[in-house]
């Protein structure tokens, strides 16, 4: 088991945003976390990432307890986080944005499996021509790619991607999907929060459905397909 979160309870002030949330991700697996707005999907990710501190519960990553650790420690343990709203650094150039993702500031060129700037450019060719452009000047889709690329520069073993296709054009949505599929193929596990059910279904091996602040349903894609009640209860508006 790569990631194992058990019985997480997180609060925003007095409101109980996450109730006994549990999930796990196997090595090389794509897991989708689905549910309607405001159910706690992003909260789950933030809690795992250490951006929010759970009051109780446990997060084990690769056999190590990372519960409530500072985000940079979680990141160094091997979790890459691609947040909602993309959150690139608007005042930094494309290249600097990518370099921000490098842990320790230096790219280890001795290891062939490591992500380098060159590899990122191969994957996202548009960046090559715009290395010195400020992040703020990129389009939404490009910013999304940049965020993913930036996270990849840290060589994560697990990528947590929050709503990557939100607000993108259909062409861009497809491109993001393809990128994620390719990343998965390269052996990186993915935990995905996605509104676009089609994209999610096409990528995921398993799904978790969230009700208000808690886990509603869990199973493989096939099991979800076979369970219209769960879909009605947790997904349809």
């Amino acid at each position, binding site marked *: 088991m790569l990631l194992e979160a058990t019985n997480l309870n997180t609060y925003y002030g007095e409101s109980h945003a996450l109730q006994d949330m549990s999930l796990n991700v196997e090595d090389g697996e794509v897991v989708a976390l689905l549910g309607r707005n405001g159910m706690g999907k992003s909260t789950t990710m933030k809690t795992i990432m250490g951006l929010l501190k759970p009051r109780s519960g446990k997060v084990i990553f690769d056999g190590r307890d990372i519960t409530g650790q500072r985000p940079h420690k979680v990141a160094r343990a091997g979790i890459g986080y691609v947040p909602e709203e993309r959150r690139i*650094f608007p005042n930094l150039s494309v290249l600097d944005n990518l370099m*921000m993702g490098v842990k320790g500031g230096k790219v280890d060129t001795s290891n062939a499996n490591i992500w380098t700037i060159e590899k990122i450019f191969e994957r996202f060719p548009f960046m090559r021509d715009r290395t010195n452009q400020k992040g703020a000047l990129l389009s939404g889709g490009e910013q999304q790619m940049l965020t993913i690329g930036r*996270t990849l520069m840290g060589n994560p073993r697990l990528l947590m991607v929050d709503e990557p296709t939100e607000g993108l054009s259909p062409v861009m949505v497809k491109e993001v999907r393809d990128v994620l599929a390719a990343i998965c193929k390269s052996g990186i596990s993915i935990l995905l929060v996605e509104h676009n059910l089609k994209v999610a279904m096409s990528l995921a091996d398993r799904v978790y459905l969230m009700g208000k602040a808690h886990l509603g349903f869990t199973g493989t894609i096939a099991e979800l397909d076979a369970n219209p009640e769960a879909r009605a209860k947790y997904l349809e508006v």
Partner: protein
Amino acid sequence: MDPVTAMYVAQGMHGLAYGMILFLLASGLTLIFGMMGILNLAHATFFMLSAYLCYQVIAWTGSFWLALLIAPIVTGIIGVLLERFLLRKVHAFGHIGELILTVGVSLVILESVKVFWGTESLPVQIPNVLQGLVTAGGLDYPIYRLFIIGLSLVILIVLMLILYKTRLGMVVRAAVSDADMVDALGINVPLVFMLVFGVGTWMAGVAGVAIAPILTVFPGLADQVGMDAFIVVVVGGFGSLGGALLVAIICGLLNSYGVQFVSQLAPVLMYIFMAIVLVFKPMGLFGERE
């Protein structure tokens, strides 16, 4: 140069010198706010503390240069300790908490200064090499004020080089716009915070030492300069070094030419400038982030 032109040029130089002092103070303030969202109301107190430390180092060693080296560093270390052991702990309670905490800290420092050094004005001499005037084209100008302008420029250039040419600078610039994200990328942001806080207070310390020989060192030293630096940060835009530099110089010039032409209104000009800018750009001239 005829005497009238010389007077105007001299006023411009005064404005520049005061503006650079303001910049030294404001740059730390604006970086700290930009990165951490902390309105450090103790910032000007560090400026005052450093002036006292400067006095003390000179009293012990007789060397202004040693004071210029040591006093800001000690001030910076105290700043680091403040960040590490107090501010970091209250971060979770929001900005008002940090604000009140820095007010508390500034009061404590102010009183401690009085316990150690008393309340009388203390003298600091200009070092011998920097005494006197330099004459050029009919204009006499104090060497020490030129030194202040020069020193500030050097610090400004070094600061810019670090910010725009090093990885550390990149991290700082990134953290100004989104500190949490930088943390989530595996960079130890609390450590960077502590460093920036230290550098910020160090620069306040340099400003304190630089101004000590012009002013007597007394407990109320921080009040006016502190408020002016605050205006610079607000008008320049939180987190914007360029904004701080530009507005600091504008404020310095408003100050000196204000005295020259509309003496009675001189202190009001800066506030009117601030009010006008903020009405049209509530986040300041170069502020972006809410």
